[in-house]
């Protein structure tokens, strides 16, 4: 059987993920953040580096056995993976935000026109949220910088992922509602988890203990 394959997200989560793995005694010396090698073999674990939103896909389809990925990605992709431990880092929140000055006006408009336009990079999370709240919206999918949308008249509100909220404030937006909070998760492919639990269990236990002690 091939070594356990562990998918890690490049970008914000990577240094925290590497620190966590190092802390529980996993050799991650082959991985250089920002490096060009995307598959790092060696030892009992093979690492694959990918974009955060692809980690869930890799693990869901069994291209990787384990992964560290934000709950935000799992919520948006709906990937069928097993979430084994909450790791605590990478905290952020899905929020609904609107121009600070114009919240009342947009609500008036909603009563008048019967619908709101919402720009977001996370259409699934946004749609699920507004459907659960029985609010009629039109979702406008953008690939980046949703916070600009209300400023230029692309949409009334946005649904975005925020860590500190400073980007929202800088663009004159205020949080109307929090949808969900997110931290990094240790996830596994379901079939692989059941088949190779003996190998994975020590990693899961040590990572959970490490996260609980922080």
């Amino acid at each position, binding site marked *: 059987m091939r070594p356990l394959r562990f998918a890690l997200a490049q970008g914000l989560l990577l240094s925290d993920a590497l620190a966590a793995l190092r802390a529980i005694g996993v050799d991650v010396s082959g991985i250089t953040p920002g490096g060009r090698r995307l598959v790092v073999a060696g030892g009992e674990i093979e690492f694959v580096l990918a974009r955060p939103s692809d980690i869930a896909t890799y693990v869901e389809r069994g291209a990787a056995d384990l992964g560290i990925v934000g709950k935000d990605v799992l919520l948006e992709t709906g990937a*069928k993976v097993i979430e*084994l431990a909450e790791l605590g880092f990478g905290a952020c929140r899905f929020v609904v935000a609107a121009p600070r000055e114009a919240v009342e006006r947009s609500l008036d408009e909603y009563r008048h026109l019967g619908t709101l336009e919402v720009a977001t990079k996370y259409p699934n999370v946004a749609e699920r949220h507004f459907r659960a709240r029985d609010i009629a919206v039109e979702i406008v999918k953008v690939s980046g910088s949703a916070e600009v949308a209300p400023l230029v008249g692309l949409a009334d509100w946005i649904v975005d992922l925020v860590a500190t909220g400073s980007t929202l404030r800088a663009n004159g937006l205020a949080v109307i509602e929090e949808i969900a909070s997110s931290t990094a998760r*240790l996830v596994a492919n379901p*079939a*692989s988890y*059941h088949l190779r639990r*003996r190998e994975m269990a020590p990693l*899961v236990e040590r990572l*959970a203990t490490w996260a609980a002690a922080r």
Partner: protein
Amino acid sequence: MNRESGPIAPPRGFRDILPTEARELGVIEQTLAETFAASGFTPLHPPLLEYGTVDPAKGRRIQFLDSDGSLVALRPDLTTSVARLVAGRYRDMTGVLRLSYLAPVFREEPALSGGSREVLQAGVELVGGGGSLADAEILALLVESLERCGLPVCESTVQVGDIRLLTGLFATLPDDARGEVIRELRQGDIAGGLRRAGAAGMPADKLRRATAALTGVAGGVDGAGVGEICRVIELARDRWPGSAKGWGAPNLALLPALPYYTGIVFEAIHPDAGVVASGGRYDLLIGAFGEPRPAIGFAIDVLQLHRALFAESWQPRSQRPLLLLRASVDERATMRCAASLRAGGLAVAMGDVAERAGRAVIRAEVIDERLVKLDDGRVAEAAALAREMGP
């Protein structure tokens, strides 16, 4: 290229199965049918369409409105169809039923996810049988079916869990909190489920036990009450008396997405193909359509099993070669020669065959009604050739 007729590739999530693969699948299907029949299971054929009233696939159905306005769906699952059929047609026959099927089911998959929307299932349902003996018989039949097809079954191949034991881990929680925890576990969120259990006031020692059962080393959870699972596995292994075969791993984290299981659950998993088969006890499902009856069954995903066998360098048992007969000028003699070869048990095609699906061919030329000339120059009589090449 003339594309007026529309796209040539099938719709997303569906694919053509070409003769080579179809031949290999045929070998697997035949083996499974024989294995099921040898344990007394009788094939039946539920319809392709079902009313959209019961939805085990939770919104993953391919459904549409019938011309009379009723909501119908391509069946997402055969167990539910069999349950409906049993509740209706066997209302008055309260004895044990042993039913089997080989048929496709259809499930919606998100676009661009590479998921297949058609799944070919071969399975059995034992209706009316309760207790460990029925559990063990079905579990053993699954292992036997996979092995007879040629899949090596090792210790971790068959994972066995139990919904009652899993729910029992959270017995101290109030009903609604326990329901929420199980719902999260069913979605794969073990970490979230355990956090919720802790927040709902589960005692620390119980929480540790549940954590060990769900995320600890499998099998090493005797304290968490997997004894009952082990007993069923032991009993199932007695299907091969005296054998030292160590298949079967107790695993309480096994919780299928299908919601109707009530007792033992199991999956057969292959490192390359993933989940090849799954099943379990569903004592309440038939009750959704009529009188409740205990039942247990499994379904093998035939295409995944084929993929697993392929990864194990499996070769289907070889077919006898096909004799390609070149016609002589006497067309009547050609017809009669082919007939006498076929009567002798040979597979004969007149002329050529472009798609041979991996089958070996032998070429021969018709000399007269009884004689052919093989390509190596040898002249053989139909009856003798049939004896030489026949089955």
